[in-house]
């Protein structure tokens, strides 16, 4: 490695070399492009501006606060205030209106549906589906088949306190017994009840089914919640078994399994998570999906 005292220039390219040479190969000392270099210097100058404007250097008891007192936590508070200024008037009207008045007032209804739709997509869609179509175990909200009632007040109550949500004292609660698991009914009895339940909505039965026995067992075990006619009771969240809408499936295996394990779906109580106005908007949104009573 030669110690350069004179700048050496590579004959072929005309560029200065660093003076480092290995086996006759010299290292070119091509300068960085000017535009790149000045951009680099500019970023350094820019960072000094940042130190002045934003919180930056730590000290012994605190840190430099920045020239304008900007703080991430107060900035978001300001942003939310700005948002509230836009939404506030509409929300105030919504908060003041009674549930049934909202649906009669086109302007309020449009606001509630937009606000409720956004809240639904964020909070409800994972279980009830983006189009409120539901899934196995999660009710469809577009139809007029309601577990806990489809009036505005019922819907509001269900959203606020949830279903089988133990943390909320006012939650909708009832639990179908695990007839099979807990040994209340024997396997052949459950098979007969399942066949009878299928017959309630006109579904075909297996040829060896004893419907009379199934009916008898239904009357003594199931009718207290599902009703003598199997039409369900919304006070206890017992579904109507005579329609074509099935929460856990209508095939024999699904019905037998449900009788075996009992129970029921859980819905979180949204009262602690969402504010009352949002719940109101959600109530109107769900009610207006098609099945509202």
């Amino acid at each position, binding site marked *: 490695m030669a110690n350069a005292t004179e700048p050496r220039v590579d004959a072929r390219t005309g560029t200065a070399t660093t003076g480092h040479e290995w086996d006759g190969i010299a290292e070119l000392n091509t300068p960085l492009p000017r535009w790149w270099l000045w951009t680099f210097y500019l970023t350094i100058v820019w960072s000094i501006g940042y130190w002045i404007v934003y919180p930056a*250097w*730590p000290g012994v008891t605190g840190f430099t606060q920045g020239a304008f007192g900007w703080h991430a*936590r107060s900035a978001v508070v300001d*942003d939310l205030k700005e*948002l509230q200024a836009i939404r506030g008037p509409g929300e105030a009207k919504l908060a003041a209106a009674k549930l049934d008045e909202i649906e009669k007032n086109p302007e309020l209804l449009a606001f509630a549906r937009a606000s409720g739709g956004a809240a639904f997509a964020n909070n409800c869609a*994972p279980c009830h589906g*983006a189009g409120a179509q539901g899934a196995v175990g999660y009710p469809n909200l577009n139809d007029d088949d309601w577990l806990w009632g489809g009036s505005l007040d019922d819907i509001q109550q269900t959203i606020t306190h949830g279903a089988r949500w133990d943390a909320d004292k006012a939650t909708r609660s009832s639990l179908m017994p695990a007839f099979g698991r807990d040994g209340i009914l024997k396997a052949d009895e459950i098979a007969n009840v399942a066949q009878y339940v299928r017959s309630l909505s006109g579904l075909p039965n297996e040829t060896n089914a004893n419907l009379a026995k199934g009916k008898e067992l239904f009357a003594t075990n199931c009718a207290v919640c599902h009703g003598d006619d199997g039409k369900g009771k919304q006070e206890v969240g017992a579904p109507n078994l005579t329609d074509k809408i099935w929460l856990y499936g209508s095939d024999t295996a699904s019905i037998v399994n449900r009788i075996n394990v009992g129970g029921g779906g859980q819905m*979180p109580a949204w009262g602690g998570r969402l504010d009352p106005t949002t719940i109101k908007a959600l109530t109107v949104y769900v009610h207006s999906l098609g099945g509202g009573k």
Partner: protein
Amino acid sequence: MASSTQSSSLWHKHAIFEKNSIILVIGIIVAIAWGGLVEIVPLFYLKSTIEKVDGVRPYTPLELAGYNIYVREGCYLCHSQMIRPLRDEVERYGHYSLAAESMYDHPFQWGSKRNGPDLARVGGKYSDDWHRDHLRNPRAVVPASIMPSYPWLEKTPLDSTHIGDQMKTLSVVGVPYTQEMIDSAEADLKAQGAGDGKAATALVKRYPKTVVRDLTAEKDGLTELDALVAYLQHLGTQVDFKLYDDKANIR
């Protein structure tokens, strides 16, 4: 852009570093030490960076076991646990995350990528059954989901033999597990999944606001899925934001 080493200006003094490796090493150490001094050391003494928040407690043994599974399955690769103080995030996920809420996570699960939604406040947002259905096959409940299925979690018995050791280790790095908590780790873990009882009362006394579930009704013993669900249902539920003072840490 030194094109010559002839100049003796300050600009060319770096040649000293480039030509003497020991001086270069010392220079590197000085530069890194300064960076550490400015960026890391203040975090240990500045009041605003070590905000104390009511309600934050260490994980129960079952939640800790769930946390381990969360880390093992790499959930953090697609889910963050960090609600930033930005309007759209606060609107969607709830109150922005506080440093204290992840102070007992080793390592923390803030994540940096959001293929899926943020999970910092997912606790209590959905039912246990939903989490089970969703982890078994996300498409069963969210048709458009791109999350992988984790069907083995409900089939794998939870190995809790080392949970006490892990708590002991965590206590060394500052998680306030007491000797009593460590000694009763396995009993607490089982109690949280076995519904009511004396053991559950003792558990809730040690870990306030713990949700105890009856998870063993239909099977023997707890599974990895049970632990993960207990962990997820706990996320973001420790601090009561009705009581938290938003302005406490704004100057």
